[in-house]
């Protein structure tokens, strides 16, 4: 019987630990789902805490009943005890049908209110429009209001509603920045959308969460929620034409970029590019302002010259199955290309 007590204590302890761990979010967990980065995230957080305590309570009741029964009614080996003849108790059964039903109603009401509140049909005209196009395995973000096309890092304005409309270039992906709210699958052949108002400044991690093939794990993204001024500045910067280097390594790199197959898939405004309407799976990230991004290759590497060189040398080693081919660039050529790309601020 001692062991039963021990077990009960340990399980209850674990549950308490769960409750404690889930009470608040911490900067140590960049993908924490219990967060308050937007109205959507706060609503989910609220329901979660509510349901979590209900679950905790029911679990404790079941555990206590079971372990008390073990403690009181267990018999010793060789003394089997009198068999019982109790078969049922209709009052008890009605009770444990009705009480859970009431609890479920209590959960269902806020659930359905939140469903309708977070899936609006209409949104204000001045809401930020972001077109999300998921590729194997990177994210394309287009801002039709500003004519911006960027990759893997999405910039949002705090306090301004954002409407993501999502499309896939190949297979099903799922767009998710946990700090800002729930996820939405990106389904080919269908436009899905999600709408919320981010209101906490900062850099938030996200990731593709629908299994999408070999490098599913390497399809990450970053969300930047900025103040109005910062966001406007970013927009202005992105809209500007890229710097064209006049001389030095970067200028040589620009020539390599145009000569090598890079330009077939990658756009640098004014130098190379696919049709802006093209969303097929041939497309690589728009590199016009590549140097201003903090990460590369689906947000799995920090944007440093060393990482970029490693990536160009062998994309498949970093992102298995990646569409980007190994070009065989070496030594000086590689360094020049890296210098050019990093200069695209």
């Amino acid at each position, binding site marked *: 019987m001692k062991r039963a007590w021990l077990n009960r204590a340990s399980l209850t302890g674990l549950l308490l630990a769960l409750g404690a761990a889930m009470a608040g979010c911490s900067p140590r967990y960049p993908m924490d789902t219990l967060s308050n980065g937007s109205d959507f995230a706060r609503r989910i957080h609220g329901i979660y805490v509510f349901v979590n305590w209900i679950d905790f309570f029911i679990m404790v009741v079941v555990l206590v009943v079971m372990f008390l029964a073990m403690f009181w009614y267990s018999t010793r080996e060789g003394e089997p005890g009198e068999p019982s003849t109790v078969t049922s108790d209709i009052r008890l059964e009605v009770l444990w049908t009705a009480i859970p039903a009431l609890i479920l109603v209590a959960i269902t009401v806020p659930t359905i209110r939140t469903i309708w509140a977070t899936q609006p049909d209409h949104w204000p005209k001045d809401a930020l429009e972001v077109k999300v196009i998921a590729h194997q395995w990177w994210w394309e973000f287009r801002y039709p209001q500003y004519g911006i096309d960027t990759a893997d890092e999405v910039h949002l304005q705090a306090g301004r509603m954002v409407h993501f409309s999502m499309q896939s270039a190949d297979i099903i992906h799922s767009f998710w920045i946990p700090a800002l709210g729930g996820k939405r699958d990106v389904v080919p052949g269908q*436009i899905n959308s999600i709408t919320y108002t981010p209101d906490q400044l900062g850099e938030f991690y996200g990731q593709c969460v629908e299994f999408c093939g070999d490098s599913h794990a390497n399809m990450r993204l970053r969300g930047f929620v900025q103040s109005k001024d910062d966001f406007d500045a970013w927009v202005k910067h992105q809209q500007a034409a890229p710097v064209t280097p006049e001389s030095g390594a970067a200028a040589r790199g620009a020539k390599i970029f145009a000569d090598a197959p890079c330009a077939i898939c990658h756009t640098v405004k004014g130098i190379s590019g696919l049709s802006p309407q093209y969303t097929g799976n041939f497309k690589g990230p728009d590199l016009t302002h590549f140097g201003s991004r903090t990460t590369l290759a689906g947000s799995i590497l920090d944007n440093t010259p060393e990482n970029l060189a490693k990536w160009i040398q062998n994309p498949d080693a970093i992102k298995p199955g990646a569409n980007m081919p190994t070009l065989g660039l070496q030594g000086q050529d590689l360094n020049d290309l890296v210098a050019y790309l990093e200069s695209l601020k």
Partner: protein
Amino acid sequence: MSENVATAGHVAGAEHASGHPGPGLYALIALALVILTLMELAVYYVSFLQPVLVPILILLAIAKFFLVGGFYMHLYYDQKIFSIFFVFPLILACFIGAALLMIFSALEGRLTL
């Protein structure tokens, strides 16, 4: 077998053949099926019936369905249990069809093709 009939819960092992109708009724049903099919075709080709085409056709199909199921498959004569085996899945099948139609028609406005 007769001993078992007395035992609780046991139904007599009825002769399957005994309750079935004979060729006369079968022929009558066949005639009814032909007439119903002719009616379907009539409905299909008569232009002023087009607005109510769907409900009429569905009613006629259900009628044929019941004639074949009830008489040719003997559901009308055999033990109830066969009807249960068949009708419950049939209801489920209708439910699946209706649910899928509703779910997909809700998506129609959001297609890219």
